[in-house]
């Protein structure tokens, strides 16, 4: 759930390339070769340390991704999957997927799920961060407790939510009953399934937003608020004129990271609804999985095609994230 700033990685080689500065006094040719040889040797040492990582990335990132692309361009059946001799089918899987009646509902669900989740997570996270930013007794402990939903294994939180939202014996419907509302078929009615998984996902995502926004708030100097309150600015005005504008860089990063991560969500939806009923809560991720593993007759080609479309979407926002982050650190 976390990404580390790339700028250090990118910047340190750049600055360092400048450090072994060109020698100011003219060196004799022998010394120059010695120096060059030395530099080459230190490059070799560096890459010897990196080699395992490069090998690892090639074998366990590049190769699976290549395999996935290969899957999406062939007509695979279980048999040809094992024998690895499926006929090449070009873009057929992609066109099949794009013309599938599930495509647009899944796309729409992915967008709704992602956008509603990140916006509400962000809003709740920001409100809580502002609340916790004024330290009070127990605030540290309570803030730590807020991390719990984020740390729990997804299968744990998903199955807990599934039981809480159970139509007959779920505690949520009991709560509705207490305030005089009719019970809702949270997970089994097509009109509520997507809402249910969004609610659970927001619950899981709030801690991440809280922690990041909180540390962003901690970097805003307190004198600004003192000055503002001397000038007679109320709490709301302080938030609007100081907190929100100064937090904008951190907010952008939080939202974009949330976007990239929420697009990938699979476990939660699969465990709670399996994308159902019908396709009511299917996203690209669950749809792709259903193609490949959800039935007795796996369709790896279309599944891989959907997966690759998902990668493309994630990459668009991912590159946007990198751009924003770069510009902020520049």
């Amino acid at each position: 759930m976390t990404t580390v700033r790339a700028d250090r990685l990118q910047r340190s080689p750049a600055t360092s390339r400048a450090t072994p500065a060109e020698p100011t006094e003219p060196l004799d040719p022998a010394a120059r070769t010695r120096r060059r040889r030395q530099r080459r040797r230190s490059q070799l040492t560096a890459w010897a340390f990196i080699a395992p990582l490069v090998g690892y990335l090639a074998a366990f990132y590049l190769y699976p991704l290549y395999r996935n692309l290969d899957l999406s361009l062939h007509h695979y059946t279980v048999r040809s999957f094992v024998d690895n001799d499926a006929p090449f089918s070009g873009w057929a899987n992609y066109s099949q997927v794009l013309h599938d009646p599930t495509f647009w509902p899944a796309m729409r669900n992915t967008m709704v799920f992602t956008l509603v989740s990140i916006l509400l997570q962000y809003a709740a996270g920001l409100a809580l961060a502002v609340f916790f930013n004024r330290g009070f007794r127990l605030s540290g402990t309570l803030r730590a407790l807020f991390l719990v939903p984020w740390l729990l294994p997804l299968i744990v939180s998903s199955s807990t939510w599934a039981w809480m939202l159970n139509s007959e014996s779920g505690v949520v419907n009991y709560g509705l009953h207490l305030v005089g509302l009719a019970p809702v078929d949270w997970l089994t009615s097509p009109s509520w399934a997507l809402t249910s998984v969004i609610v659970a996902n927001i619950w899981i995502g709030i801690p991440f937003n809280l922690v990041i926004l909180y540390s962003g708030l901690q970097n805003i100097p307190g004198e600004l608020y003192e000055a503002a309150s001397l000038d007679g600015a109320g709490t709301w005005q302080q938030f609007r004129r100081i907190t929100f504008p100064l937090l904008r860089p951190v907010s952008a990063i939080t939202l974009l990271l949330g976007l990239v991560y929420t697009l990938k969500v699979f476990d939660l939806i699969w465990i709670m609804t399996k994308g159902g009923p019908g396709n009511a809560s299917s996203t690209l991720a669950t749809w792709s999985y259903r193609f490949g593993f959800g039935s007795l007759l796996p369709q790896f080609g279309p599944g891989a095609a959907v997966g690759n479309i998902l990668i493309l979407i994630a990459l668009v926002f991912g590159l946007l994230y990198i751009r924003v982050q770069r510009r902020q650190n520049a």
Partner: protein
Amino acid sequence: MTRSRTRTAVGVVLTALMLFPVYWMVNVSLTPQQDMRKDPPDLFPLHPTFQGYQAVLNDQLPYLLTSLLIGLGTVALTLAVSAPAAYALARLRPRGGGVLGMVLLIAQMIPGIVMAMGFYGIFLNYGLMNTWWGLIVADSTIAVPFGVMIFTAFMSGIPDELTAAALIDGAGSVRTFWSVVLPVSRNALVTVSLFSFLWAWSDFVFANTLDSGGSMQPITLGIYRYIGNNNQEWNAIMATAVVASIPAALLLVLAQRYVAAGVTAGAVKD
């Protein structure tokens, strides 16, 4: 003074609301089977039963041990791949380091489900399906890019004098890495280990696609099968969920500051 007390009260209420699902999980895990479908449900475990936990001991112990093994294996593999590479990236100025950093950043954005399908094809062809160490390899892909980035960020901050002194003492880069840089990077080591363990422990996608027929399966599959098989015994399911949450709880209590550091490592300028 009273203002601060009001805030504490509000804070406690908010935290209680937020943690209600966790409380409910514990409550259901202690509810006797016959009360499970009671209307209204018992809000407190008035007649607690340990049937559920008994079932965990009987059915889920092998799954828990497998998860422990896979978690530790993932930590070892992640550290072994990421720490040396990060040392080079942070201290040895390799040409092309920037590109590698970019690759790692993008690697983190690839959906697990896509990786799972690619691994499925590979594992099937090479006969690695349903092995615990295959799952370790797959799980480590979640943590390695994160690990390299945490280590690199941390090791770039180590003062030059420290490594220069090692160099003067005649230590080569391997010595410097092992006896100087690595011990100083304790915080980064802890953070990376914590998260790679937690992610491997919690992984469901890889487990379900790559190890669902194996003789050694992790606890996430144990719970998943429980839900599928005996829809009725929710106290046993929730008891397993409680037990499966123990590592997360321990982390929070014992290593809270590392956890927070890991979450924010990405987004915030310091």
